[in-house]
């Protein structure tokens, strides 16, 4: 009944983010596309560690049963924090570029001429 729907959702998120990075000109829209790709990768890491009919891997007042795998959840935590750090650095550089050139179009900012 489920038939791999979470994996198809991961592919759709990555494709929408890749479309925003390649085919848009505004720099803020490119940054939103990069964030969508990171969300797709985090979702893929979590859906790799699910067993059929399992509960969360915590022992405090837990009902019995088999538990899900804890290692992919720990790796996803690290990946989310790295995504936040890279997003903060990208946004601060876009603010600096806007102050210097006056436009947000990625094809109109000049390089080192003259």
């Amino acid at each position: 009944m489920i038939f791999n729907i979470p994996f198809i959702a991961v592919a759709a998120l990555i494709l929408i983010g890749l479309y925003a990075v390649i085919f848009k000109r505004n720099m803020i829209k490119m940054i939103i596309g990069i964030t969508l790709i990171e969300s797709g990768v985090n979702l893929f890491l979590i859906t790799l560690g699910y067993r059929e009919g399992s509960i969360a891997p915590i022992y405090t007042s837990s009902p019995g049963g088999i538990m899900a795998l804890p290692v992919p959840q720990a790796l996803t935590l690290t990946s989310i924090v790295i995504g936040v750090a890279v997003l903060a650095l990208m946004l601060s550089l876009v603010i600096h570029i806007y102050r210097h050139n006056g436009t947000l179009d990625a094809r109109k900012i000049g390089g080192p001429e003259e």
Partner: protein
Amino acid sequence: MSRRNIAAVLSFSIVAMFLIFGALMIHPFGTPTETDMDDNIITNAQTETGSNNAVTSVVFDYRGFDTLGEATILFTAVAAVIMVFRRLKK
């Protein structure tokens, strides 16, 4: 249809084909292939680390070196953001 547009559409369609083919051919949802290490962590986490939470014991005790690298990345990103906007003393 300049050459840049043709290259963009071609590369996007190749990546889309790889991703959709991979999403349909992967193992069925809910049956991971190898679970020996995680079963060992689940049964031994309470006596070896002394905490009731298996995810926290993996993050800080079994794989504490990755958390050290992540703390370094967070520190470097904050330092770089503050350095971009520093006020030059006149």
